Structures are given as C-alpha cells and as structure tokens.
C-alpha cells in the first residue's frame, strides 16, 4: 500500500490557472508519458482500422477517415460505416471503464477493485435485462439511466455490506464476487422468462461485445463522457485526500460521506454507460489504473487522465486481438480482457501476500 501514498515524489508540475478554481500538481513525467500514450493510441487505432476481412493500407485508412478519395471506392464506406464506430466505441468504453476503476480503487483504497469483479456491471445488467423482459415496448433512451440506477444500487449494496467489516480490502472483493454471482443468476432467470428473440439478443449483449456497433452508440457514449470525464478529473484532489484514510480526510475538512457518495455515483455512471452499449466487460477497470500508476505515480491528478488513455488503448488492443486470434470469426471482447486481466490479478494477489 506504500505505493498509494500520494505525496513522496519530489518533482511536480503545478497547474493553477487564474481563471479557474482548480489546482493540479502533476508528476513531471506526465506530459511526456501522455504524449507517448497518445502516439501509441493513434498507431493502434490506425492498425485496428486497417485490419479486417480485407486489409487497408494505413495511409489509406487515414485518408478514408478524413474523407479523402483513395484508389478503392469502397474504402470510405468500409472505414467510416463499419470499422470506425466499433473501434471508437471500444476506445470510449476502455476510457470509461479505466476511469471508473481508478475512482473505485481510490475510494476503497483497494487496488484490486474493478466494476466487473465487484459485480457493479452485473448489477447494471440485471436492471436492464429486467426492463427489457417485462416492459411491453422497451424505450431505448431509458436504458442508460436504468443501467445507472442498477450500478448505483449495487455499489451501495456492496459498500454497505462491507463497510462495518472494517478495512479488510480483500473482503470487499469477496462480497463483490458474491453479489456478482447473485446478479448473474438473476440474469439467467430473467432470460428464461424472455421472448425468444429478445433472449438471443440479451445473450450476445451480456458476453460483452462490440460487434455491430453503430454511430448512435458512439454518440451516446460520447455525450455521457463529455459530462462525466471532466468531473472525474476534477475530483482528483478529493481522491488524493481520501487515500490518507477516513480520519485524516475528515480532519482535513472534507465532507467524507458526501464526497464518497458523489464519487461512487460517478464511478457507477461510468461503468453503467459501458454496460448499456456493450454488456459486461471485466478487468479493464482493474488493469488500466495499475499500468497508469506504474507510469505516472499514485497522485490522482495525473493518474486519472493517464488511466483514461491507458484504458482506451487496452480496449483498442483487446478488440484487435479479439478479431485477429481466431479470424475470420471473432471472440467476444470480454473474453480477451479476461484472458489478459485474470493472470495479472493473480500476480498481484501473489505479490501482496496478506
């Protein structure tokens, strides 16, 4: 846990604009690392778009994205209508899950927390599946809000159940696992009640899949993220303070319970919106903050931004892998992220002892 202490590093960049009431201290490495990450992200995006049933040369990909004619008239259609929405959606989902996981790890002071492992994604899924099962005419625009309600209720349930148990961070994960399997059973139960055509859709959606994504979904994700991500980045200072422990946080004048509730809601919303568009995808929210912490240290100002980028990068790579490994068919992306994430979880478990 020593790694989580926010203050021991000496080199800082301070951002304190006159016009805005914010004050950020970034690790000196942050800008350079973000630069490298963005370059990596750009490269992997282009690679990902160029790979597919038939490959498109990277230069043509860039041309097609910007609407410049290439020598193949199909390029613009394939890139813009089929490949780009899916890949951008993966990117946004990764960013959202990364941010959600980083907040959750910050609040619980537990570096094993993840919206997938803790069952928060499943909680969002239960409410959505219940709505689709019982509503006569499901309204699509309601679904993100229902997912949010489900995620928030699940977070509150897990938090409430583990709260009195003191500071055992591993127990929180165990309770999350129990809640997740209860939610999983509820979903299976609901699916047996569904009309058969809806049930098949639900199955595909639940494995965590970005197959057949549309620009509408990208737009939906983007709308939510434009609101949620700035709030997330601005809550860095609160998260840093919470890392010091409950007593110290209250002592420093933070309204702990209020702040905690706001942050839980934020993290739930970020997880819920990914569930709405792509079903339950695990482990990204757990792995991304770890990688980011290695890169820019534990202070949340740099960490939250870096995690968002790393999460997006991881999802783009996972999506590429999911399409490439068993081409011409493809894996649900939830499978790829579990195959990457689970061994890392085991490694951390091994490392921390306790």
């Amino acid at each position, binding site marked *: 846990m020593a790694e989580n202490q926010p203050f021991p590093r000496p080199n800082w960049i301070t951002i304190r604009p006159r016009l805005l009431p914010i004050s950020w201290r970034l690790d000196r490495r942050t800008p350079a690392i973000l630069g490298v990450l963005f370059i990596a992200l750009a490269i992997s995006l282009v690679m990902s778009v160029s790979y597919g049933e038939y490959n498109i040369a990277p230069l043509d990909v860039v041309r097609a994205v910007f609407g410049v004619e290439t020598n193949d008239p199909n390029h613009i259609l394939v890139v813009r209508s089929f490949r780009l929405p899916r890949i951008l959606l993966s990117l946004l989902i990764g960013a959202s899950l990364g941010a959600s996981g980083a907040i959750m790890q910050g609040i619980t002071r537990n570096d094993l927390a993840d919206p997938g492992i803790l069952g928060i994604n499943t909680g969002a899924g239960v409410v959505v599946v219940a709505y689709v099962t019982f509503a006569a005419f499901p309204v699509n625009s309601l679904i993100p809000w229902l997912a949010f309600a489900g995620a928030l209720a699940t977070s509150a349930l897990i938090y409430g159940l583990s709260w009195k148990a003191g500071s055992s961070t591993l127990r929180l994960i165990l309770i999350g696992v129990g809640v997740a399997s209860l939610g999983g059973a509820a979903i299976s139960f609901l699916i047996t009640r569904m009309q058969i055509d809806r049930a098949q859709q639900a199955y595909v959606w639940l494995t965590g899949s970005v197959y057949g994504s549309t620009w509408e979904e990208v737009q939906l994700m983007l709308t939510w993220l434009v609101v949620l991500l700035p709030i997330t980045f601005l809550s860095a200072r609160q998260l840093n303070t919470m890392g010091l422990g409950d007593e110290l946080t209250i002592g420093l004048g933070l309204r702990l319970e209020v702040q905690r509730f706001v942050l839980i809601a934020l993290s739930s919303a970020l997880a819920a919106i990914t569930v709405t568009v792509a079903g339950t995808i695990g482990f990204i929210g757990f792995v991304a903050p770890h990688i980011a912490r290695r890169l820019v240290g534990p202070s949340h100002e740099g960490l939250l931004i870096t995690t968002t980028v790393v999460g997006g990068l991881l999802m783009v790579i996972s999506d590429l892998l999911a399409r490439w490994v068993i081409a011409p*068919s493809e894996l649900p992306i*939830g499978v790829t992220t579990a195959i990457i994430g689970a061994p890392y979880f085991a490694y951390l478990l091994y490392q921390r002892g306790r």
Partner: protein
Amino acid sequence: MTQASVASRNNQRLIGPAALLPVGLLAGVAILVLGLAVSITLGAAEIEVSTVFASIFQYDDTLFDHLIIRTVRLPRIIAGVIIGAALAVAGAIMQGLTANPLASPGILGINAGAAFAVVLGVFFLGSPPLLTYAFLAISGAGAAAVIVYTLGSVGRGGTTPVKLTLAGVIFSAFTAAFTTAILVLDRQTFDQIRFWTVGSIAGRDWELIAWMSPFIAIGTIGAMLMSRQITTISLGQDIAQGLGQNTTRVRAISAIMVILLAGASVGIAGPVGFVGLVIPHVVRAICGVDYRWIIPYSAVAGGILIVLADSIGRIILRPQEVPIGVMLAFVGAPFFIYLARWKVR
C-alpha cells in the same frame, strides 16, 4: 484433550445426545426418499406416486408413464442425488482441511477446472468415450486444485482463507474465458455441451451415470475412512501433529478424494455450484464437529438440496424450467455473502 474440546463444541449442535445421531441420519434418508418420490411425479405429465413405484418395481415397457419415469425422470433425479452427495462431501472435506468456511469445489475453482478440461477434450477429440470424459474431468479437477492451492499459498503471509478464495474465483474467471473462446470458435463443441457448461441435470442418461458413479463411490468411501483424521486436522494443524498424525499424508489422500468427487460430478452435470459451500455449514449446525458424522450427513443433505432445488425449479415457472445452477445460486450466493461478511476471520 481433543475429546474435551470436541465435547464442548458438540454442545452447540442441534442433535444433542450422540445416540440420536444415527436416528437423525436415518430420518434424513427417509426425507430424501420421500423427496425423490414426490419429485418424480412432478413434470410436464402428472404421474401418481403409485405409478412411480410400480414403474420401479413392476416395470411394464408398454406403459408410456413407466417409460417416461425410467428414461427421463429417474436418471435425472438419480444424477442429481449423486452429484449433490458428492459435491457436499467434497465441500465438507475442503472446509475441514483448510479451516476456510468459504471452501467448496465451486468457489475454489475445482469445478471450473474440470469443466474446462472436458470442453478442451470435446474440442480436440470430438465425442470421446465416456471413460475418457471421466478421466478428463478428474484430471482437470486435479490440475485446478494444484494451481489454485499454489496460487493461494505463495507470497507473503501463506495461505489465508480470503486469498485462497480469491485465487479460486480468478482461476474460474480465467478458465471461463477460455471455455467461452472455445465455444465461440467451434460450433460443434458448442452444440454438444452448451447446456452442460451451465450445470444441468436434465437429460442425463444411465450410461453416463454408470461411468461416473464408481469414482464418486470411491471418493465417498475414502472420505469415510479418512473421517477421523479429518476431524483431528480440523481442530488445528498443531493439535493433529501433536497427536502424531502425518498431516501431509492425510491432506494428500483427502485431496485426492475431493478431486475424484468433484471431477466425477462435473463429468455428470457440469459445474454446479454452492452445494459444497452451503451443506457442510448446515450439517455442522445439526451434528457437530465430528467428521465421521459430518460426511454421511453431508451426502444425504446434499442429495436433498438438489432434489428440492430441481423440483422447485421445475414447478415455479411451468412449463418453463429454471436451470438448477440458477436455483442454487439464489440460495447459495446470499449465503456466500453472509459468510464472507460475518464469518471469515
């Protein structure tokens, strides 16, 4: 000395006098038989209890009801009783050996390992003979036990209940991802074992049960023979060693029994969770801490739980059926949360 501590802990059990323990066990068997009889009558076609008995003792293959009972309902419910007993006994042994209230073949990933081995086998071999199936499931269970135990005990602090449990959960998630990958990759494998991978006792046939049962019988008898030693270990590693027990050998033999029991029951019904978790706790509340009684009680109670869950799953949503894995999770998951919240250290 252990006698004294056993006696004091026995005072908390539901069945006080030791002489009543065999009576309780017989009562359990009676409940199981009664439950079986009622369960067989339930289903798409209503069948009288008398017809059930007639079909067993005076089988007449010209009668449609007899045919249903013999080929559909009886194998299903017998499969249920067998795996219920096997998983409950396996869970009881695991909880005794690891001093971990959350230990059970489902949660520690043994079932997931066995299921993954079977999926791999079907993927590479097509339709292997049933004996191969059994060996696959059992070796998968064995590999999972070794991996999860290693993962849970390396690192600082040695084996703790929470670490072992998390290792099992993560191992399950990991193998589940690979299982899904194979099922997506290979439509034929998917069709063959789609229902099996979620844990189901519907549509089992006699041949499968006949191939798996010997392993479960060996596991159960072995567990009974080891029960005295398991009781001693459950009182603490130090006490067991102080009494001159070769604890390593006892653990190794008991682990083999667990692997046989869990592996073979996965071979029959796929990964069915929570029986091995819940039953030993209930049984300990009834009959105390002596594994000579815990093991047979667990076997009977595990059978009762499966029969109950299966019957309820068949009647609440008629004509549809709730898979037994789902029914058990509704009971088992809250129990798991309760244990994780209040009973682990």
